[in-house]
């Protein structure tokens, strides 16, 4: 609680800190960017995680543990490390452009690590594992009898998906969205390494503190970011309840 109180005190020490943050400009742009990037990353990573999570939860196959460990590995990487990995893959002399150069004669995607696409990929890289792990736990308890009952009542595969599977899985999907969204909102290291001109709120907080020692604006940004994250999480939570 004490650090939180200090933070709030900093934010309110200068009366116009919040106005500065919410006025058009770099701070507001960073908040909007954070919101857009994190929302997109949450939806895409959850969508991509459904199939692997279902497979891990319901199927047994040789090498399952190995694959599962490999998928969950990025969760243990710090953001800065993920950033450097993306540079190694998609930098100007990254592995992907080099390979493309060998295969097609043209070095495709060279330097894309520093574009918005590169940043988005980096977010997916650590959000998909989070989504898979969270969804897998939910899918484990999915009652297959329900599906069998619907089938015996004559429902086709699409009707079963729409009326049985999705309604049942929806709360899990929404809470997974909330988890991945919050993690993206707070993520800092990836953007620190990769963001060229696209700025996100945690990066602005860092700059305000390190370059200008501006506790008021940094505190106000923190609170605004937390409020946004909390607000969107509540939206997701209401649907998962």
């Amino acid at each position: 609680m004490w650090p939180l109180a200090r933070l709030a005190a900093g934010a309110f020490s200068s009366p116009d800190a919040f106005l500065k943050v919410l006025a058009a400009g770099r701070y507001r742009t960073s908040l909007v960017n954070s919101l857009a990037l994190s929302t997109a990353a949450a939806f895409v990573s959850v969508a991509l995680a459904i199939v692997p999570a279902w497979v891990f939860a319901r199927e047994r196959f040789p090498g399952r543990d190995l694959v599962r460990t490999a998928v969950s590995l990025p969760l243990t990487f710090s953001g800065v490390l993920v950033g450097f990995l993306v540079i190694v893959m998609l930098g100007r002399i990254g592995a992907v452009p080099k390979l493309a150069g060998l295969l097609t004669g043209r070095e495709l995607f060279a330097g894309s690590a520093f574009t918005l696409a590169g940043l988005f990929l980096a977010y997916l890289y650590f959000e998909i594992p989070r989504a898979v792990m969270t969804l897998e736990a939910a899918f484990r308890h999915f009652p297959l009898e329900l599906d069998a009952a619907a089938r015996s009542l004559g429902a086709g595969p699409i009707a079963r998906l729409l009326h049985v599977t999705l309604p049942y899985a929806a709360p899990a999907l929404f809470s997974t969205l909330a988890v991945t969204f919050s993690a993206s909102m707070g993520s800092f290291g990836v953007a620190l390494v990769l963001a060229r001109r696209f700025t996100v709120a945690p990066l602005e907080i860092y700059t305000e503190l390190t370059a200008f020692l501006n506790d008021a604006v940094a505190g106000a940004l923190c609170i605004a970011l937390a409020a946004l994250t909390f607000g969107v999480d509540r939206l997701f939570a209401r649907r998962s309840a």
Partner: protein
Amino acid sequence: MLRFVSRALLRACFIIILAVLLAPSAAFAPPAASEDKIVIQYDCIPNYANWGGVTALYKQVAGVTVPPDPKGSSVAMAALEKEKDNPVADCAYYSGAIGYQAAQKGLHQPYKPKGWEKIPDSLKDPNGLWWTVHTGTIAFVVNTKALAGAPVPQSFADLLKPVYKGKVAYDDPTWGGTSFTFVYGLNELMGGTEKDFRPGLSYLKKLDANVSSYPRESIYNSVLRGEVPIWINADGNGYKMKYVDGGPVEVVIPAEGTFTMPLVMGLAVGAPHADETKRYFDWLLSAPAQAEFAKSFFRPVVAGTLPAELATKFLPDADYKKARALDLSNMAAAADALKKAWLDEIRGTGR
């Protein structure tokens, strides 16, 4: 079977890592073991100005550890200010203007190290709040192999050409003092003043089309490997890549002119190891330490300590005639406003 093998492997890894972490070996002990003598220097990047070599030599001659520290000048100053009531660091190293600003903010206490009289007056504070240890010059550090056929750029005008798209980088000036010196000097070169940043920013906006990133960490190794072909930074870092690390690197003094940059130090207020730090400062101006800095091609501030075989490796004096000194007090006064303007205009505006 696969599952069994993978489990066994994981378990083995886990046990090995745990064993290494718990091993009471001296090799793994942290550098700040209590009986060791230590000096904490903010901004002590091993690949910059050969701090790695200098601190290793000091450990050898005096038995004092000066651990590496990755902060840039501005971050070092912010840390000193933040920790004012509970000081952690003994001293900091900065590019001139930021050190000057830190002294103005009252973050330094006076000390005049041995050899003080050998430092030219323009490169030290009369009261001993800061002084220069060596100087550098802003230059293009070019990895010629990574240029992929493009000619080596010779001027700031060249850098704007489309052939260099995605090939240029300079550090975030809110992070590093070298880059702040570049941004400030460039603005003067383009006709701006310490109050009017438009000429410099308008050039940097055009340059942005060719910039791959604005790093907030040392990209020395990225340049050496060719990930970044053109780095606007201190000349010495380029010479070191070329002559020490054997990289395909050339140093270019831009045709329009460039800027010299004193690199300064100061004793932090409330330094926990003040006496040890003063001895360290005395040694840093001695001939062996100055010659060690020179191995990374930063010019010693004490005249006559640049070894002759290193002197011949610099570009000819005709090139260095194009380098001008910048007024540190003007720079310090403009620092916050210029950094903000750079953030608003260059970074944080999109993409």
